[in-house]
């Protein structure tokens, strides 16, 4: 399915990430998945949260540089080769992945993928997997 991801620009300075989680905690927002891409000077934090609209509002109010992005979330079996099958299907249908992150827990794996055309990707996944 297509879900909203929250993306936050984080300057690489001590305590900045903690300031962000503090705001989310105070607003009773739960994080279900996250990844951080970092450079020497800054990072991009991407996360899936329980209430992205509320989180967006709260972080903007606290002067964070933040936006929401559509990402594709899919489930696949937690077995060797399952991710490969998924990516092969996407590749064969001309779909490229900009970035992804995922986790597995109790027999299933969940993947979050940034794809330029999420609707088309969903259609392909639903028809093929």
């Amino acid at each position, binding site marked *: 399915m297509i879900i909203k*991801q929250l*993306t936050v*620009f*984080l*300057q690489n300075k001590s305590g900045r990430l903690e300031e962000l989680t503090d705001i989310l905690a105070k607003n009773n927002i739960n994080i279900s998945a996250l990844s951080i*891409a970092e*450079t020497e*000077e*800054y990072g*991009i934090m*991407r996360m899936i949260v329980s209430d992205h609209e509320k989180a967006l509002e709260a972080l903007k109010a606290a*002067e*964070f*540089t*933040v*936006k929401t*992005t559509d990402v594709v979330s899919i489930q696949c079996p937690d077995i060797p080769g399952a991710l490969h099958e998924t990516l092969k299907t996407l590749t064969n249908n001309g779909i490229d992945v*900009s*970035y992804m992150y995922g986790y597995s827990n109790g027999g299933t794996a969940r993947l979050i993928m*940034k794809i330029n055309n999420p609707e088309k990707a969903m259609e392909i996944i639903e028809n093929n997997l």
Partner: protein
Amino acid sequence: MIWNEPKECMSRDERKADQSKKLIDVVKNVYHNVPFYRKKMQETGLEPGDVKNIEDIEKLPFTTKNDLRENYPFGLFAVPKSEIVRVHASSGTTGKSIVVGYSRKDIDMFSEVVARAYCCTGVTKEDIVQIAYGYGLFTGGLGMHYGAEKLGATVIPVSGGNTSKQLDLLQDFGSTVLACTPSYAAYLSEAIDEAKIDKKDLKLRIGIFGAEPWSNEMRSKIEAGLNITAYDIYGLSEIIGPGVSCSCEMQDGLHIAEDHFYPEILNTETLKAENPGTIGELVFTTITKEAMPLLRYRTRDLASLNYDACKCGRTNVRMSKIQGRSDDMLIIRGVNVFPSQVESALLEIEEAKPHYMLVVDRVGTMDTLEIQVEIDDRYFSDEMVELNKVRQKIKRKVESILGISVIINLVEHKTIARSEGKAQRVIDKRKI
């Protein structure tokens, strides 16, 4: 040794009489030969005859870098072009460069004041002078060259850069004097260590460094690194080039060749004269130049003046080391940088906001310029590739305008302090 004792050691009264006479002449000259000055004087109802002695200098109009730019290239020349024997130009930071012309007599005077500077530092005709200032439009190389020849020293006109060649010459020719920028001297000192050259094998004894502000701490470091005594030489092409002033063995200020360049120190707000010893903007009037005399040229350099006779025997006024700038110009790796140039570059890039901070630092002997830029929310991307594209775009734009390489750092929205008054745009971590 003093190169020209009558000129460098006259009493303050003699000095005043000499300067008064020369000022009267130069005012007449520019009034009749430079339309720019005639117009400026007429605007305030000033006639050449109103200037009767050196104290009347405060009646005269100022000249700024912008005036030189607006009269680019030859608009301020006071002699026919056939009388010009050389032209120098300074690097154009915002738009056009500024041009300075010299007559035969000016070149002689230039050589004379540089010869005095060499003498001031203890250089004699027995010395071998390695000139590692750039030769060309920049006045450093040729200025130091002519002065050393006038003195009768042996000149090695190696020019700037080419460090391995510099090291070869230092060893093979036994250079005893090095003339270059202080940062290049520091760099050479490191290069000598890296090449494992034994300093005892070098004959170097004196360094004459200028064209950049530097601290006493840096002087000590260079002196230890090169096993020399280092001296400070000051100048600017608008006035002549190097040799406007130079420190002596007392290391207590720089002796100004005030029989040619009349200095004033003015309060940066009121532009009125400051008392001796007080820091203000250094302003020069060239009282003997033929080709391009300047009245009250505002250098924007901050310094103070000391009229006490020096223990070295010279009586000419001494200026302090340059304490900073009255505008926001930075000198980074020898290149003049104005924060406003960065601002105008950023304004042309829609992804960046015009909120920025320049962080200047010195890593080893190299100056670095980091520009922190706030990213515009609309262009913030969840993809690293896109953010890097924004960064590269800003980097290319800024570098094309400044002419030096920069480090661009994207920072969070509103992290650069907003100010209602004059914004703090520069953090200079260099110790100068």
